[in-house]
C-alpha cells in the first residue's frame, strides 16, 4: 500500500442545538495499519474537525467508554483495527438502543438507573467490623462469580440486545449479570433484595436468550449465561414460596 493511503470514516453527527435530524459526515483519514478506529476519530478531532464529540479514556479496553457501532457492530473502538476494514469505508454510529446526546455520545442515564437497581455491591445483614477481619473467601467460592465480575460497563451488550430496544422495563444484560454476580458471592447476603427487583415482570423475564450480548462482550462475561442461571434461581424462589409461604426475604 502507498505511503499516502487513506481510509474514509463516516461519522454519525448530531448537535442538538442546531440539528433536528442526524446526518453522516465523511472524513479522509491517513491509513495506518496499527491504528484503531478510536485513533482515526481522535485524529479527525485533532486535525480536521474539533466539533466531533466522542467518549474515550484508556485506549486499552479497560475503561469501557469508547463503545460505538462500527459498521453496525457494537465495538470498543480502541480494539477495532482499521486494517480489518480497509480499504472499505468505516461507518461509526453511537451505540444503538440508547438516546443520542451528541454525535457519538449516548445518554447513559437509563443504564445507570438499571445498574443501580440491582444493587451491585455486597449487602450484609451484620455491620462490617474491620476489627474482626475481612470476609474470607475460598478460590472455589471466587470461581462461582469471577467471570461475571469482569464487566467494564461498556454497554456493548445493550446495543446488541433486541429486547433492550423494545422493552423499557428490561434491566439488560450487564445489570442482570452484575446482579447475579453479587447473588453468587459467598460474602453477600442481599440476594432476596436483588431478586425483588430482578424477578419483577419483564425486568429479567423479558430476556429470550438471543445470546448476542455474550457474542459482543469484550470481557467474556457471558451475560446471557448469567441471566439463564438467574432465571433458574428465580424459578426456584417462586416454588419455594409455595413450600414456605412466609419466605425468608427481608
Amino acid at each position, binding site marked *: 500500500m502507498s505511503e499516502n493511503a487513506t481510509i474514509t470514516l463516516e461519522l454519525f453527527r*448530531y448537535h*442538538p442545538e442546531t440539528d433536528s435530524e442526524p446526518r453522516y459526515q465523511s472524513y479522509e483519514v491517513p491509513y495506518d495499519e496499527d491504528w484503531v478506529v478510536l485513533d482515526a476519530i481522535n485524529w479527525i478531532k485533532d486535525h480536521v474537525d474539533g466539533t466531533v464529540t466522542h467518549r474515550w479514556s484508556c485506549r486499552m479496553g479497560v475503561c469501557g467508554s469508547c463503545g460505538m457501532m462500527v459498521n453496525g457492530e457494537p465495538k470498543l473502538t480502541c480494539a477495532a483495527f482499521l486494517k480489518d476494514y480497509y480499504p472499505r469505508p468505516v461507518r461509526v454510529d453511537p451505540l444503538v438502543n440508547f438516546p*443520542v446526546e451528541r454525535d457519538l455520545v449516548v445518554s447513559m442515564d437509563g443504564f445507570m438507573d438499571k445498574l443501580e437497581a440491582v444493587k451491585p455491591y455486597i449487602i450484609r445483614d451484620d455491620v462490617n467490623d474491620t476489627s474482626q477481619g475481612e470476609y474470607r473467601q475460598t478460590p472455589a467460592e471466587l*470461581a462461582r462469580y469471577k467471570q461475571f465480575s469482569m464487566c467494564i460497563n461498556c454497554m456493548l451488550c445493550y446495543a446488541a440486545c*433486541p429486547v433492550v*430496544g423494545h422493552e423499557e422495563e428490561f434491566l439488560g444484560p450487564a445489570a442482570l449479570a452484575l446482579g447475579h454476580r453479587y447473588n453468587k458471592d459467598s460474602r453477600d447476603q442481599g440476594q432476596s433484595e436483588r431478586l425483588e427487583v430482578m424477578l419483577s415482570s419483564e425486568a429479567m423475564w423479558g430476556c429470550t436468550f438471543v445470546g*448476542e450480548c455474550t457474542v459482543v462482550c469484550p470481557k467474556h462475561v457471558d451475560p446471557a449465561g448469567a441471566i439463564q*442461571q438467574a432465571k433458574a434461581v428465580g424459578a426456584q424462589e417462586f416454588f419455594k414460596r409455595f413450600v414456605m409461604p412466609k419466605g425468608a426475604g427481608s
Partner: protein
Amino acid sequence: MSGQYHRPHRWAWWTERPGYMRFMIRELTSVFMAGYLVVFVMTLARLGAGEAAFGEWIAAMGSPGWMAAHVVALAAAVWHAVTFFGAVPQAMPVFLGEKRLSGPVSQIVMGYGPWLTVSAVIVWWVLR
C-alpha cells in the same frame, strides 16, 4: 433531557445480525414442534380408535406430503435439541472446586448423551 435524539424503532431487527437470524430459527422450531405434537396426539387418538383406524392413519402418513411434513418436524426437533443442550454449559455451569466442567463435557453428560440414549431406546423398541 432536551435535544436527545431517539433513533427510530427497528421492527425488522432480526434481519440485522446473523446471530439474530439464528435466534429466529431456534425460536421457530417451537412452531413446528407444536404442530407435530398435535399430530402425535392425533396418532395416539387413532390408536385408541382401534386397529383399523390406526392402520389407515399410519398408511396415510406414508404419503409424500406427510413425509415432507415429518422431515420438517424432525429438522425442527433435532435443531431444538442441539441448541437446547448446546446451551447447557452457559445455563447450568458445573463446578468441581475451582474448576468449571468444560463445555463439551457438560453438553455430553447433561445433554447429548442422555438424548441419544433415550432416542436409541425408543427406536430400538419399535424396531426390535
